[in-house]
């Protein structure tokens, strides 16, 4: 089993693991952000370049560094590989550049976008992006398209991660939606605006990292942070029926699949659950959905604190502080080397 070192943390992983997967096995702050990679979708990844890492030693046999940052979602680990993510300042600079590229054509209409508050690009830009843009030209714009009557496509916001295309490919049969054209004119489209009529087409909304594909039944209903997310389930013949209800009072505003800490859907849900059951009576509510404390959705939601978990979290953060120290030591050594 190959041993890989990511940000000075060593881990042994099975053959054929990618750097991103190995980093996720470690968890915490060493995990590179990913906008297009989706662990549940085959052949996803490799488009957005946000998950780039620096490989300072390719393997034990060939200790030379890789010449440029590599996409961690598509690079397999080798024995003795040394990877740097947050410990490398130039890598963070490069990632900032990637974020700037992703934002070049993004309209930044977060105040009217329904994805705001749970948007991967928003989080990424907040963590890595710059407040200023250096781009002086007009941003590309598209007309809004209705994919069926339940899904709205704002192509203007799309970052071309291809996740929705993979969903259409792998989850549904008889795909009628894909990417047309090439380069900076490429766009997600249903061929001559054919409706995607499939039981699982709604999952496109959940996999979309930005607000390009949004739920038409939730359009402008409420901002996510005004809603109260609840875990719920129902007996469904098509899917597991395990969902999150986004509620306001006794009203169900939106139904979505449950997402893990990497904002990836745990279990796909069918359109029947997603769009057709907007009554509280249809669902067995399990309880409040846990939201991350640094998420805007947790605003004004009060919860009982599990002291045991809090202790674990504090320990993790202490560990994280330790990691920062390593980073400082590293950069210091690097400066001295340059001298």
């Amino acid at each position, binding site marked *: 089993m190959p041993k890989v070192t990511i940000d000075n943390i060593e881990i042994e992983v099975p053959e054929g693991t990618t750097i991103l997967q190995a980093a996720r096995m470690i968890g915490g702050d060493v995990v590179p952000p990913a906008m297009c990679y989706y662990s549940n979708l085959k052949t996803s990844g490799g488009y957005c370049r946000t998950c780039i890492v620096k490989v300072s030693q390719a393997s034990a046999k060939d200790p030379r560094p890789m010449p440029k940052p590599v996409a961690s979602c598509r690079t397999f680990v080798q024995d003795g590989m040394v990877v740097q993510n947050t410990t490398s300042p130039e890598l963070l600079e490069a990632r900032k550049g990637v974020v700037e590229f992703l934002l070049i054509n993004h309209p930044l209409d977060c105040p009217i976008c329904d994805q705001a508050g749970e948007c991967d690009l928003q989080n990424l830009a907040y963590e890595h992006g710059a407040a200023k843009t250096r781009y002086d030209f007009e941003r590309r714009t598209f007309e809004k398209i209705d994919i069926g009557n339940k899904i709205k496509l704002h192509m203007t916001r799309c970052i071309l991660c291809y996740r929705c295309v993979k969903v259409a490919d792998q989850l549904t049969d008889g795909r009628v939606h894909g990417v047309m054209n090439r380069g900076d004119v490429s766009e997600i489209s249903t061929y001559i605006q054919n409706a995607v009529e499939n039981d699982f087409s709604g999952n496109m909304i959940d996999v979309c990292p930005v607000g390009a594909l949004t739920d038409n039944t939730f359009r*402008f209903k409420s901002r996510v942070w005004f809603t109260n997310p609840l875990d719920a389930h129902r007996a469904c013949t098509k899917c597991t029926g395990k969902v999150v209800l986004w509620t306001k009072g006794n009203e169900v505003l939106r139904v979505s699949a449950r997402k893990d800490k990497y904002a990836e859907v745990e279990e796909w849900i069918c359109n029947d659950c997603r769009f057709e059951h907007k009554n509280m009576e249809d669902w067995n509510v399990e309880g409040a959905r846990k939201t991350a404390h640094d998420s805007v959705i947790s605003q004004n939601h009060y919860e009982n604190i599990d002291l045991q978990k809090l202790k674990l979290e504090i320990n993790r953060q202490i560990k994280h502080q330790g990691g920062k120290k390593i980073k400082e030591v590293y950069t210091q050594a690097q400066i001295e080397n340059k001298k």
Partner: protein
Amino acid sequence: MQLTNRSKVVSKKEMTFAEKLYFPAILGGMGITLKHFFKKPVTVSYPEVKRDIAGVFRGQHTLKRDEKGAERCTACGLCAVACPAEAITMTAAERKKGEESLYREEKYAAVYEINMLRCIFCGLCEEACPKEAIFLTDRIVPSNFERDGFIYGKDKLVEGMNENRVDVTKRQTEEVNEFKKDKHYAHNK
């Protein structure tokens, strides 16, 4: 344990006959009252007389319109989430065809309410607003006999047209005006 030396020992001795009359004490009190007749009053007769207030005074809110008279607010909810008193609530709606002159963007606030009894006039809503829609002004929220009267809807908050506009130029500092000129910040485009 004695913490300060300001404490006074209360004497419980019997009052004398003169003290029991209370007459000298009453005269003394009236003397103080009389002295104040010849002093400059510290109060003003509001609303006939108004005190000078600073340009950055934080009073009643206004929802601004843009140059063409369309409402700037897009109901993004950032003011409500920034509000420490949870005084702001809103409901969004989608702009229909033909309403372009009324609302600036495709989403607008159909209902926008500020509970003035809850509001602490901290100005965080103004700071959070990405659309320069909400401003606190130098107006004072008038009193009311009903609690309902303090819930200000769009009828009271949205500024009027033409001569009824609310001037908020004083509220924008030099630094803010300088910042707004830089078109490389996406929200200034």
